[in-house]
């Protein structure tokens, strides 16, 4: 099997095969935590970290992995990394940890991570796996951030409120507040589905315009199977 080029890995993870708006993986945390830009970004970064480390470790373990026992190894790696993230958040970013609550632990159930370990990292060299983790994780985090920001802006009329939860007291009051009340629906659960639906629609619209020729191939095979 040949390795995809770096540009392909990046374009796939960030855009063509984006975990959030194309593969629609990891929807549970995506929808639940995207009530504000800060919580969305917080969970996005935590997921990015777990995804990248899992990809790298799985790729490094590749020579010793045995087919029938590989999934338990992946699960062990993912679960311990998520536990580490949980402990680090609780110890060093307690306020953010309070907001994200259970959803940090639920990173473990994000299918994107297991899918990348199985479909990519366990068949590719560490460099490519690392890049794929970074690209896929960044793509997912970007969707969380955009959805969170949009819901916060429409639902509460603020943007990046509580940035100090993520970046310490220095960032207190850095957020933006509009002199409007906001449309409650956006921060309620239906708002998450509507927002994500709009993002999926926007992705398709951008890709299916006639001159978007490169991306059109990606849209035709949204799971990116063309490499294998």
């Amino acid at each position, binding site marked *: 099997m040949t390795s995809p080029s770096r540009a392909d890995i990046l374009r796939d993870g960030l855009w063509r095969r984006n975990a959030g708006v194309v593969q629609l993986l990891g929807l549970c945390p995506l929808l639940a935590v995207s009530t504000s830009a800060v919580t969305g970004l917080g969970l996005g970064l935590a997921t990015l970290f777990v995804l990248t480390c899992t990809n790298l470790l799985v790729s490094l373990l590749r020579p010793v992995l045995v087919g029938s026992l590989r999934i338990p*190894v992946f699960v062990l790696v993912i679960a311990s990394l998520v536990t580490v993230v949980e402990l680090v958040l609780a110890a060093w970013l307690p306020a953010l940890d309070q907001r994200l609550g259970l959803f940090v632990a639920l990173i473990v159930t994000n299918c994107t991570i297991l899918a990348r370990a199985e479909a990519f990292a366990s068949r590719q060299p560490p460099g490519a796996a690392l890049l794929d983790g970074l690209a896929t994780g960044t793509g997912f985090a970007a969707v969380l951030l955009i959805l969170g920001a949009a819901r916060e802006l429409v639902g509460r009329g603020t943007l990046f409120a509580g940035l100090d939860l993520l970046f310490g007291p220095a960032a207190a009051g850095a957020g933006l507040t509009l002199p409007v009340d906001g449309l409650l629906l956006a*921060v309620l659960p239906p708002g998450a589905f509507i927002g994500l639906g709009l993002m999926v629609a926007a992705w398709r619209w951008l890709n299916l315009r006639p001159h978007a020729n490169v991306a059109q191939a990606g849209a035709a095979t949204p799971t990116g199977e063309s490499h294998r």
Partner: protein
Amino acid sequence: MTPSPTSELRRGLAVLCGVAIAAAGLVALTWQAAAPRIEANVQARAEAGLAAVLGNRVFDNALAATGHSPQSAAARAAGIERVWLARREGEPVAVVLQVATAEGYSGRIVLLLGLTPAGEVLGVETLSHRETPGLGDFIEADRSDWLSQFHGRGLGHPSAERWRVRRDGGDFDAVTGATVTARAVTGALQRALVYFEGHAPTLLAYRDPDPTHGTADPLTVP
């Protein structure tokens, strides 16, 4: 070319065990580094919450360590879950009640209520709730100052039967469209005040049963 299935399985199990041991080691190391901070954070959160409902009352005892849970039926009926006693030079200066209610829009609402020994409200904070974001979350002190309308009030100011939202013939403002939440909180505070009025002598006389805790505050030892 392929090794026998059993030898491959054995190799796979060895790898799995190795990964498990490494993973356990990683988690253990992280825990070792994080545990003291996590404990300190929990403690700090508890103390900050308690201090927040005491206005600017000054106390000199280890307030968090005085937490105890009254077991009486009256406490249970009023939703009182925990009580703390702030003292200064051995004299009670304030009481903090943790009171819970299930009458909110969804799930339990847990409140902290700070009172003077005479039963006047020093402060109210919401510890946890699951009311609807944007609608019922006005009970969070950093989202709205709705809770501050209770400051300085007590039983008799207004009287117990007027400790309700205006809609129900009481003295307190509700939030239009979210009366359920406002009613639940007002009701919980009313029950806590009535409980405190009935049990003030016992609550104010509380002594930490564990003398090793008490030594943090030598002045309170009679």
